[in-house]
């Protein structure tokens, strides 16, 4: 049966490989990701206006192509006459930074605790898993609101809060994978060769949990984008006049019936960002798996 299994596995790999390189949606997502990343990095160079620059004369101008459109304001202006495109670009820059740093904090925190919980089957595991259960049981938005209300909202506090938001998912995934892997003979083989626990965790366990972690990272990234938007929408996230995608949607809410374009640009960016990140995650996972590579 092993011979057949080999052939079947090779066949599947080939199909998976074709999907990894040739999928049209993945190519579009890849292109979008490059464009978005470039836009975020080069924002100060490409933004047509200062995002904080008010001009009450040209307030609430619709996007180019409509009646009364202001000169140069491609996506129109908001209630204070600020350029929507420039604000959206700066907003995305901030949101992306928050999301990346936040997701990384969650990854490091949750990943480390997950490895410890998976390897040390003792009170330590019970304690970590109890924390995980608590984090799941308590609606995190409430906790975030409380922390931000007490400590006040600045970018540092915000990024820490966003980071802590997703750690429990990483911890659960990593712990389950580590427990599965420690039963595998190659871990025992490493132990028999004289490897210590830290070495095994670093060289044998981590590379094998990368795939699920990458997927979780991209999920967390989009979750954080949405959480940040929620907090900013509620007024506890990024403080005006500094723009973030969430706060733009939040502040633009009042003008929805008369000036929907204020909300439109940041909302479209939120959707595009989350979509791109998800597809990118699938692509990365396939790339990271050496077993999907051709013989």
């Amino acid at each position, binding site marked *: *049966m*092993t*011979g*057949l299994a*080999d*052939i*079947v*596995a*090779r*066949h*599947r790999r*080939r*199909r998976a490989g074709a999907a990894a390189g040739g999928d049209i949606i993945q190519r579009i997502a890849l292109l979008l990701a490059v464009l978005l990343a470039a836009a975020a990095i080069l924002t100060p160079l490409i933004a047509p206006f200062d995002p904080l620059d008010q001009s009450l004369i040209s307030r609430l101008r619709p996007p180019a192509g409509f009646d009364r459109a202001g000169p140069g304001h491609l996506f129109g202006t908001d209630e204070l006459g600020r350029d929507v495109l420039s604000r959206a670009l700066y907003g995305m820059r901030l949101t992306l930074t928050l999301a990346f740093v936040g997701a990384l904090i969650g990854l490091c925190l949750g990943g480390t605790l997950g490895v410890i919980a998976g390897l040390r*089957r003792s009170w330590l595991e019970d304690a970590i898993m109890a924390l995980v259960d608590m984090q799941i049981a308590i609606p995190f938005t409430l906790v975030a609101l409380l922390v931000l209300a007490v400590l006040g909202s600045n970018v540092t506090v915000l990024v820490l809060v966003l980071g802590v938001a997703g750690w429990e998912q990483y911890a659960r995934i990593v712990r389950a994978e580590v427990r599965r892997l420690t039963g*595998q*003979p*190659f871990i*025992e*083989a*490493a*132990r*028999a*060769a*004289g*490897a*210590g626990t830290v*070495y095994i965790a670093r*060289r*044998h366990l981590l*590379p*094998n949990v*990368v795939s699920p972690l990458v997927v979780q990272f991209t999920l967390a990234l989009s979750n954080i984008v949405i959480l940040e938007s929620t907090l900013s929408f509620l007024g506890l996230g990024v403080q005006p006049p500094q723009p973030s995608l969430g706060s733009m949607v939040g502040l633009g809410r009042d003008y929805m019936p008369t000036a929907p374009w204020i909300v439109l640009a940041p909302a479209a960016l939120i959707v595009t960002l989350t979509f791109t990140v998800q597809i990118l995650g699938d692509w990365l996972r396939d790339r990271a798996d*050496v*077993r999907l*590579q051709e*013989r």
Partner: protein
Amino acid sequence: MTAPNPPILSVKSLRVAFGSTLAVRDLSFDIHRGETLALVGESGSGKSATALSILRLIDREGGRILGGSIRLGARDPVEVTTLPPAELRALRGERIAMVFQEPMTSLNPVMRIGRQIEETLRLHRGLTGAAARKTARAALERVTIPEPERRLDQYPHELSGGLRQRVMIAMALICEPDVLIADEPTTALDVTTQAEILSLLRRLQAEMGMAVLFITHDLGVVGKIADRVVVMKNGCKVEEGRTGDIFAAPRHGYTRELMEATPRLGSGAPEPLAEAPAVLRVSDLVTSYGAGGLFSRSKPVPAVRGVSLTLGRGETLGLVGESGCGKSTLARSIMRLVEPASGEVTLDGEAITGVSQARLKPMRARMQMVFQDPYASLNPRMTIRDVVTEPAFLHGAVNARGRADMAADLLTRVGLPAEAAERYPHQFSGGQRQRICIARALSVGPRIIVADEAVSALDVSNARRITDLMAEIQRRDGVSFLFISHDIAVVERVSHRIAVMYRGKIVETGPTNAVLAAPEHPYTRRLLAAVPRIAQVDRPAPSVALPAPLPA
């Protein structure tokens, strides 16, 4: 009706492909009622692909039947290759049934045995309730499962491998099929259980008069069960004939090669070494499972009960016993992968037991282990270079820069190309992976290598190559091997001395030739009797309607 009587299953110029790889090329054979045909070949020869094609399950594995015909039935044969899906489903289980290799994974783990059998009955016979249960019970009785009533309410994990395979056979035979396909049904079992399953299959076949297509890589098993043999290589039939004829006079070179590789009991073991200073000494070792931890309420169960043995320099000690007798636990205790409860293990006079992990680490360089499953014992994410040099790296015998050179050297020593270093484990076959495992063990120049069922997962040809490699390494480097296996014939071929383990104890030990020639313990005798032998065709003359001689 006059002879020649028509075959019940007839395969003609079958061609099967996976993607662009041809797995079966132009294969033809017939099976008659009451006959057993063995399909023999090493892994990758297209045996399983053929079996799956007959059931048309091959599409689900990603393969395609390119051409040829598969006809089922003596009168009004059905063409299986063009059958519509609904009729195909009715045919599977009803007229053709299959038993798979892995009794562990072929049963649904969350369903009681009774429910699983009743499910088949409901699908094919429309039986439910008490009637189904009664029939299920009868099915278990037919395969002589003790306490059938209780088994019906048990889950698969509560049954041993042999019992599970019996359940699989009971399920396959429940609709009294015309043809039973058995795909390596005994490969995962140890010899004594294998002998029981084979005689069960023979008895059932005599009772029910079905045709059996028996797929195996083991010529010894063929001698026990098959009337005729088809030898396959690379998807082609290389030889076909009556079992006795093929064993007596193999015509094709590959068949001879296969017979050569098959371990034959009584073909002579290496003579015991005259002078072998003890390298490893195990005295009165006891290891228990279940003490403390998760199952702290249960009493500890001793798996190894007071074992003593010595292993001399340059010597191979064969450790045989059936699965569950404590062989692996003993190996893992010697390696200190589990903590023994009492007793002492010394390597070159230094105690391994009772020292701290830190003190133990330098000693690990002198003892290495090769595991059973070459698929799972290599980290799939590591390059072969890192895998092979890892023990040396851990013991500081090589720095990060020297690893590539060292890997190339080690790989050449085990007969693999040096370029293999940059590849990943999944890119190698089972036999090649086991070579990688040996290269890895050699990287630290160990005094002893514990090989725990190291060739059990390989087919005969590959197993032969691996044991030859071990013998060569022993001659060259003077390494001692503790060779653990359930297959006494393989053990005989490699071991200077042999130790027979039964229920956690060593019941007999001595020079291999002496022990096998005059076994003293009843268990050793039972073990020897169960080994399928290639020399003899001990299948009695078929009692059911003899198939007519094949037309030339």
